């Protein structure tokens, strides 16, 4: 990424923080009153963003899988960038879901009075596991460079890097080998954790037998593929920006294309089976997606811009890194529509005949559209995440640490 683009994005993210701070003010001072979700659609834009951010963490998982399972060693160079991206997206996820909770300061209750039978409890366990894996992993990957930067008297913030390096001034090959060995172990651990983690997203919805559109054994698999698609697209896009090596981008582009087709196939299967089942609850929810008032979110944003155009670019211009990056960018920015289309339609269908005639209070209707305050909070979180990422890649040796990683796989 050029210095100019970095500055532009930093300025944009600061503007986003300022603009979004109005929504944050509304949320922190007035609670949930200024928001549009209710009791019949209790999960709205922020939960969709939560799923979106959690999906983006799959980028690192994808790199790990390709590197250590499929032995595409060259992709290991993206390791530090991928791991750092995971931490930033986990931060965004944590912030946005905290805004959604009624009592976010009570999350310590998960430690004191856990319900081991709750899928949501286990999702939190795996999110914490991700933090516990990826923080030391990033540190181990960066340590060598931190020592080098701490020894560089010309570098601004040299003392800070020395502090981050734990005061170390030397970094022997033996220490490097030990750190890489530990990184390998962490990556092995991250593989099953990752599969369960992304599957657990889907399981939260899939186990609810009163939600006919969600209640399917296929949903965890769809969520895993959705995460791999959005996360893989993200890491490919970032690779183009920060390590534009055709030998990295082209295979990643092929992988993203394969995952895209797999995901679309599973989605089509779900829609086909849903309609064929002729179960009213499922058909009504699917109709909301396909032909409802927000049909354009599905057809135009997801199918055309987020799937057809990227697929065309990846097939036709698969050897052109720029086109691969554009395709991946389109997938990422439209993926929120995919998450919203999974979340809202089932919630937006009355589950009891006659409930539609009971109340007309805004909180007791299934009509939900995110309002400005919800969008502003989302903008604030995204801006914070973007700023953190930009400053992190600027001030930490995330890119530099990746060079030569393939030798250590």
């Amino acid at each position: 990424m050029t210095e100019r683009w970095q500055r532009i994005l930093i300025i944009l993210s600061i503007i986003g923080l300022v603009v979004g701070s109005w929504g944050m003010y509304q949320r922190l001072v007035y609670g949930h009153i200024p928001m549009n979700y209710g009791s019949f659609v209790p999960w709205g834009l922020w939960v969709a963003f939560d799923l979106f951010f959690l999906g983006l963490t799959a980028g690192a998982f994808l790199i790990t899988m390709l590197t250590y399972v499929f032995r595409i060693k060259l992709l290991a160079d993206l390791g530090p960038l991928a791991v750092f991206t995971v931490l930033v997206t986990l931060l965004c996820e944590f912030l946005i879901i905290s805004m959604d909770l009624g009592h976010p300061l009570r999350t310590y209750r998960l430690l004191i009075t856990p319900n081991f039978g709750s899928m949501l409890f286990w999702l939190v366990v795996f999110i914490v596991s991700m933090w516990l894996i990826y923080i030391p992993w990033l540190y181990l990957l960066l340590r060598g460079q931190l020592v080098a930067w701490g020894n560089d008297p010309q570098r601004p913030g040299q003392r800070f890097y020395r502090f981050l390096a734990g005061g170390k001034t030397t970094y022997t090959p033996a220490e490097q080998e030990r750190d890489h060995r530990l990184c390998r172990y962490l990556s092995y651990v991250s593989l099953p954790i990752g599969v369960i983690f992304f599957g657990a997203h889907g399981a939260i919805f899939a186990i609810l037998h009163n939600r006919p559109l969600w209640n399917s054994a296929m949903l965890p698999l769809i969520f895993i593929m959705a995460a791999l698609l959005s996360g893989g697209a993200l890491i490919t896009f970032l690779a183009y920006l920060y390590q534009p090596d055709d030998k990295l981008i082209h295979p990643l582009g092929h992988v993203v294309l394969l995952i895209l087709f797999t995901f679309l196939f599973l989605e089509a299967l779900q829609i086909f089976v849903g309609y064929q089942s002729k179960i009213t609850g499922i058909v009504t929810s699917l109709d909301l997606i396909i032909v409802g008032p927000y049909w354009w979110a599905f057809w135009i944003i997801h199918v055309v811009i987020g799937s057809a155009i990227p697929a065309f670019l990846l097939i036709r211009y698969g050897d052109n890194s720029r086109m691969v990056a554009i395709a991946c960018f389109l997938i990422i920015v439209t993926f929120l529509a995919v998450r919203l289309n999974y979340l809202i339609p089932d919630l937006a269908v009355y589950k009891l005949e006659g409930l539609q005639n009971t109340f007309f209070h805004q909180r007791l209707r299934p009509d939900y559209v995110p309002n400005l305050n919800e969008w502003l909070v989302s903008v604030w979180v995204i801006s914070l995440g973007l700023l953190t990422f930009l400053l992190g890649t600027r001030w930490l040796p995330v890119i530099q640490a990746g060079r030569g990683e393939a030798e250590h796989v």
Partner: protein
Amino acid sequence: MPRDLPQEDPLLRMQRDLKRALKKKPEDIKWGMVIDIAKCIGCHACTIACVAENKLPPGVVYRVVLEESTGNYPYVRRRFIPRPCLHCQNPPCTKACPVTATWKTEQGAVIVDYNRCIGCRYCLVACPYAARTSDFGEWYTGETPELPGKLFGRKAAANGYETQPAAEYGRKWPERGHGSPVGNARKCHFCLHRLKVGMLPACTTTCIGRATIFGDRTDPQSLVYEMIGSPRVFVLKEELGTRPSVYYLK
């Protein structure tokens, strides 16, 4: 089922059933409710009684009355189905809660601990009957003006009544603001605070058609036990296996 018309107000019998039930060991009581749809006229008095008893804010409703129209002209009927929390014997909502803030008591009522609930609203999503609502902190009297009071310097504001929450679960809750039950999932709890002092739930007492029967469903002498044995009995969404403790009579 007895074929004679009742010789006394069912409320009196239910009151005696309640008194008898409260003499048992708590773990031997299993609360149940039967709602006779043939008697329900859709007056919504139960809804209002519940709102008044529990001082429910806007957007929070424990007991709704579903209204359905069936048939084609001229053979049209309207059917009213009061739907409190069904206090399922196999509740999907309690399994969903990540912090064990909601559970089924030994007496069969599904309750919420407002001080544990983190407000994730997963239980709302999990409930097949839309029986739970979330308290988002709204006020009926939110925009009414405040005036200095004439008595003892107190504010004579319209929201003075609303500021003090009801003593749900027999506890004194703090003034309405940001603390619980604001931000929590809320639901019908069979008016446990009334049961403790020997009073029937508000919806049962107020029902003008005596369509709502309440009592200990394990007591063979109780009216609710008798009603559950009726051939007209059904439960909502039986196929889900939730086994509600609230039964309906066709």
